[in-house]
């Protein structure tokens, strides 16, 4: 890279990446829990994609029944710790809290959930769940992200023999590799993996399906298969200069940061992040935290069309990220390393009814922004090659098509959930899919 941002001290890195939502003390947790109205048929529970009985778990915090609280949470969501820290609560449970209608701050549901779950892990994961009678059937799960873990946990508790195949050395999928470290650390995700393992689920790491074991072999070995494989490669910008040193894709960049070896991640002095989704925000805020002097987000549409959540946008602005809206990259400039990015100004024209306004270039509005690093964050494609190798499986719009009732794919033995069926949503959606698919699989196997 042409201009590297100077490395920071260890303490400075730790300070930059410290949690943005610190844990409650038990005093404050109980006070906050008592503020909860304990609504009946509550809007927060409805807003949670996994439908955690939120008033019940909060009530249990108020009475000091912390194990019962954790149990209530896990009964709905096996990615409870990650969700407590990384869920976009503002648009889910907390956004639905009745206090919003009273113009009062909503109950801090995410932090309360974390309080109960932290206590559960601190207590050394006391046994809360009983496994059902052993069943003679086995399920193979591809991917140990939130969908795969949730599916594995449910099936193991029903009594099935479950093996999760994970290509990476460290399990947990995006929970381990894809969430900004100021929200969750890898250690959090690994606790959830340990919990699922405690139900008897086997997790084989360094086991890439398609490489170390063929899909057909896996399919023959098990009575059913669940795909929780997430998405594939980052989408290319398809402009010249993309091969220059200093051009990276956001997913790889975020994974590198997630190793928590901050000083070994090279970061340019001036960084341009292309795209304005939640992944772009993570890449931008992490760049700032690694010491970049100037970080900008380039987006060809306007603030209105941006897919990043409002609170993520606010966080980025607070961090000092500069937003260039209606700006599209034309080419990346540099000899061997990135030196700048040529952009063109855009304008939006009305599109067909129901579709987003369309960006078009303003002729001769090209200009060059000097940058040292370009992070591509304009989305990810499906793992098409792998998916195409599965007989009967159907893909539409880059997503695996499943029966929404039981998560079964076009191949009756194969079920799927998480990002690979929804194109990339929240951890909580994946956790819900995995759980529901497990019941789809159970029904399918019971009928056989």
């Amino acid at each position: 890279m042409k201009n590297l941002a100077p490395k920071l001290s260890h303490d400075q890195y730790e300070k930059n990446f410290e949690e943005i939502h610190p844990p409650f003390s038990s005093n404050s947790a109980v006070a906050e829990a008592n503020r909860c109205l304990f609504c009946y048929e509550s809007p927060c529970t409805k807003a949670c994609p996994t439908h955690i009985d939120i008033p019940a778990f909060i009530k249990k915090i108020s009475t000091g029944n912390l194990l019962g609280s954790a149990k209530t949470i896990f009964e709905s969501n096996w990615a409870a710790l990650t969700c407590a820290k990384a869920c976009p609560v503002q648009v889910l449970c907390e956004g639905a809290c009745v206090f919003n209608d009273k113009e009062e701050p909503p109950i801090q549901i995410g932090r309360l959930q974390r309080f109960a779950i932290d206590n559960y892990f601190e207590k050394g994961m006391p046994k809360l769940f009983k496994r059902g009678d052993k069943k003679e059937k086995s399920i193979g799960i591809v991917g140990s992200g939130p969908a795969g873990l949730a599916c594995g946990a449910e099936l193991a508790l029903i009594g099935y023999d479950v093996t999760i195949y994970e290509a990476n050395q460290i399990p947990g999928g995006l929970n381990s590799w894809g969430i900004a470290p100021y929200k969750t650390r890898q250690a959090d995700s690994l606790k959830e993996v340990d919990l699922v393992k405690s139900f008897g689920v086997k997790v084989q790491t360094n086991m890439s399906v398609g490489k170390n074991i063929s899909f057909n072999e896996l399919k023959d070995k098990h009575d059913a298969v669940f795909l929780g494989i997430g998405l594939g490669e980052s989408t290319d910008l398809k402009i010249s200069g993309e091969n220059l040193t200093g051009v990276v894709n956001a997913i790889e960049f975020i994974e590198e940061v997630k190793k928590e070896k901050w000083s070994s991640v090279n970061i340019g002095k001036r960084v341009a992040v292309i795209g304005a989704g939640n992944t772009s925000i993570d890449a931008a805020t992490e760049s700032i935290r690694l010491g970049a002097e100037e970080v900008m987000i380039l987006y060809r549409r306007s603030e209105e069309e941006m897919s990043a959540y409002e609170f993520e946008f606010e966080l980025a602005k607070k961090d000092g990220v500069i937003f260039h809206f209606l700006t599209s990259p034309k080419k990346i400039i540099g000899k061997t390393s990135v030196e700048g990015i040529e952009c063109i100004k855009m304008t939006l024209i009305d599109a067909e009814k129901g579709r987003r306004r369309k960006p078009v270039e303003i002729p001769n509005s090209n200009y060059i922004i000097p940058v040292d690093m370009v992070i591509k964050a304009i989305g990810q494609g499906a793992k098409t090659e792998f998916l195409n190798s599965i007989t009967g499986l159907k893909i539409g719009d880059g997503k695996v098509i499943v029966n929404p009732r039981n998560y079964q794919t076009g191949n009756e033995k194969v079920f799927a959930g998480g990002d690979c069926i929804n194109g990339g949503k929240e951890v909580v959606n994946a956790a819900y899919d995995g759980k529901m698919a497990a019941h789809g699989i159970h029904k399918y196997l019971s009928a056989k």
Partner: protein
Amino acid sequence: MVDLSVNCGGIKSPNPFWLASAPPSNSAYQNCKAFEQGWGGTVWKTVGEPVMNVCNRYGSIDYNGQKIAGINNIELISDRPADVNFKEIAETKKLWPDRAVVVSLMVESKKEAWHDMVKRTIDTGADGIELNYGCPHGMSERGMGSAVGQVPEYCKMITEWVTAVSTIPVLVKLTPNVSNIVLPARAAKAAEASGISLINTINSIMGIDLDTFKILPSVAGKSSHGGFAGPAIKPIALHMVSQVAADKEVNLPISGIGGISNWRDALEFILLGASSVQVCTAVMHHGFRIVQDMIEGLTFWMEEKGFSSLDEVRGKSLPQLEEFGNFNLLHKTVARIDQDKCIHCNLCHIACEDGAHQCIDLITENGNTKTVVRESDCVGCDLCAIVCPVEGCISMVRQDDGKEEKTWNELMAEFKKEGKDLSWENLGEFQKKHGIVIH
């Protein structure tokens, strides 16, 4: 495995949580719904004399933004005919054979009337009878409810009428609106009751509307005292339960009532000797579903503490009850403030300075204020630790080694033996000898 089942004076239930005789236990619909959620028993809302209710029936106090620290009511006993209630009781018991169905009764003070009600109750298949001697409003003016509970002789007489003909256990529910709760309890014992339920509600007025001058609750501009219940009355109830539980003459199983909202509250009653507990206000606030946390929380607590049955827990705290004269005068604690945890609200200083013994100094160092205990002057009253908003910031640290003990009763006996009067001089001499400085 933890066993939560209880036997309260011969009335058995799978867990100690019963609905109290009150609005939530008014009908078969409600009691059956409660059983579905897990309640171990119910005391059916009092069946008896014809009554008519009024609007409105409740008043409540909020505390610092929290709803219902306590609620009072002027609702009467069941306003549905006795026949309807008995029919529903029989149906409910048939559907829920493993739960305790106790029927609360109240009729005029005539032997025949009571005999008739007891017989009809037994015919329903109910597990027990609870005699309502507690209702402090509406019924008492008609010579029933607390009018009975307040006079041990009446209490004994009516209980005798009932126990003479009852083939099922009889609990006597006491009013707290007396000067000594033990006396009606002893009367119930003398009349061969199977157990005591306490406490009923406390005479109260909930407040005055400062704009309209209305006394709350108000019935079209008229008001009267009502029965106070809910979280605020728990300490009073705990005390009365402990008095009855500790009385050797009473020596009967207890069904504890009064401000129980969760499993922790319930445990406190059980630790003071209650066999079962009864709940009303918390259900009126949040519904029958609260029992799920009660059962689960109690189970986890028992597992954590290594108890397998409530028999091992019941009355466990009772031996600590002592009269003041037997407390050790030489036990000494002082407050210690953890400066790292202190958030500098200075509430401990002002509480001690104005409300206690002026031994927490407010010191300014480099422009920052700091609260420091003058331990030599600290009387160990605990007020500062109580007002401190930070967990674990102020602790009361024991100073004596526990080897030396002298109670007031022992000291007085000593004085007597040595021919000394109880005078300030003689007391001062004792204090001086033990380094106790009063200022």
